[in-house]
């Protein structure tokens, strides 16, 4: 996740990066004893932070067939041998995605997204340029599977208007499509529960299944949020502020988990 500065005042607290707030907010969404599937980047950083703080018995699975890795060096992706290190099991898609995810025992999926719309539908396949021209990107890999089958989905992404459109350019991974319930959609997993951006933590309304604001990060103004969101989202009367990472969380992130700032830039 490469950070390119936009038009908004992301970083009002000079000592704390937006990515650090995101990682800490992500970690708080994970509970001790849960089984999660994580994508690389901030999801992995957040899961390691959770494991080193309140959730020591978290089980982290990677779709490629790796369980509970404890990398010594920062990997560049899922295919990097660095992320295989000190795992407790090496298997493959059939085991992780079949015998765990499809089996229904994965509590949370934790992924990034290219685009996410007001019903939590995710696009990782293509971008439509203003000219109407289509540019393909990576496709689903395990994204659609995780969004379809995990008990809940947590998405972590940059907060930009074009990345949060009313409807995604390609519905790669279903959320609450057209505002319908997961039962109506014949999907086993519970669907998206949180979207963690560099401006806010978002949730989903239990009735309308549309995105709603849960908390604003410190220093972010509501107008900024609205301006940078491509759809209208439910805003509560009292808007909580996302807690900052604790001193210990910051120390772990900076000194142990991503000291070279590969993902926390």
């Amino acid at each position, binding site marked *: 996740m490469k950070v390119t500065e936009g038009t908004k005042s992301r970083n009002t607290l000079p000592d704390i990066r937006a990515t650090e707030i995101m990682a800490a907010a992500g970690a708080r969404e994970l509970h001790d004893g849960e089984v999660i599937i994580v994508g*690389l980047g901030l999801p992995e950083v957040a899961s390691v932070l959770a494991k080193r703080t309140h959730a020591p018995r978290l089980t982290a699975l*990677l*779709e*490629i*067939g*790796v369980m509970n890795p404890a990398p*010594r*060096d920062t990997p*560049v*992706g*899922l*295919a*990097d*041998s*660095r992320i*295989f*290190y000190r*795992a407790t099991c*090496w*298997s*493959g*898609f*059939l085991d992780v*995605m*079949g015998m765990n*995810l*499809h089996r229904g025992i994965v509590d949370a999926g934790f992924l990034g997204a290219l685009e996410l719309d007001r019903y939590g539908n995710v696009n990782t*396949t293509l971008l439509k340029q203003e000219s109407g*021209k*289509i*540019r*393909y*990107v*990576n*496709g*689903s*890999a*395990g*994204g*659609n*599977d995780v969004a*379809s*089958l995990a008990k809940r989905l947590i998405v972590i992404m940059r907060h930009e208007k074009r990345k949060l459109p009313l409807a995604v350019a*390609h*519905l*790669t*991974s*279903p959320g609450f*499509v057209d505002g319908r319930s997961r039962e109506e*959609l*014949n*999907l*086993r997993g519970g669907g998206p529960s949180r979207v963690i951006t560099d401006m806010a933590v978002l949730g989903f309304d239990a009735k309308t299944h549309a995105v709603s604001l849960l908390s604003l990060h410190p220093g972010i103004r509501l107008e900024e949020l609205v301006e940078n969101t491509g759809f209208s989202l439910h805003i509560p009367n009292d808007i909580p502020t996302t807690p900052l990472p604790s001193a210990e969380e910051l120390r772990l992130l900076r000194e142990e988990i991503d000291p070279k700032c590969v993902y926390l830039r």
Partner: protein
Amino acid sequence: MVDKVKSVSEVVRTIPSGSHIALGGFAIARNLIAVVHELIRQQKRDLTVSQGVVGLDTDLLVGAGLVRHLIMGGGSLDRFGPVHCVNRARDTKSLHCEDYTSLSICFRYLAGALGLSFIPVKSLLASEILERLEAGPGAENVKRSKCPFTGEEYVLLRALTPDVSLVHVQIADREGNCQINGPRWENEEQAKAGRRLVVVAEEIVPTEYIQRSPERTIIPGHRVEAVIHQPFGALPTAVFGCYDYDADHLRLYVEHAKEPERFKEYLKAFVFGCHDHWEYLEKLGGLRRVEELRADPILGY
């Protein structure tokens, strides 16, 4: 014991244009580079390629214009970039592409490996991936249906049985009994789904070595048609326990893959300009470079 060790050019000559080949790489790990280079040198055309998560190997084949139909679960070169040649071919509609997901493509291979002509899955539902499959060349491979016992809605997937499955492994004996170190993504299902199966091995061991830990035999020899012995056969991608990816060369590749003209230069220099994989390894920096990349025995990279 049958000795199945063959050279890469010998094996590639037996793969006709128009074949469906399945590649066992994943992004920048254990890619079939030596085989793909030879497919390009021998100009095998109109290929159908299938792969779970498309990597450098498929990107090379597509960039070289040899692929007519691509069946994939996703694709990337991790943080080195996207699969530019594949994405460009899709943008310009010069490639038929069937998109799946990691699990659904694995299930299609699993069905093939098990001799089931179909298998159900609970992914894909309510997605545009399924809609596009139903509207395009994938229509004959997916069908919505219900479980006869529970009434639950499923997508039924047709088995995928490539003409030739190719997988890069760390260890094989001369008969083709293979060990794979590190995670195995869809390698086992993909390999066993193939009507023919070719392995590229970093190291050839005596069968006695295999017999010391038979629980590690992921692919048994009788399934294997040919064993290609090609050390560093996956460079610039990584082989866990053997060598790391060549980050410099991956960056160089991505820079060239961004532009069709520069990609041609890349092919000229590193594929057509090399008689075989040994010459290519020399261009990468030869012995000195591969020693730099050789894996630490504890870390595996």
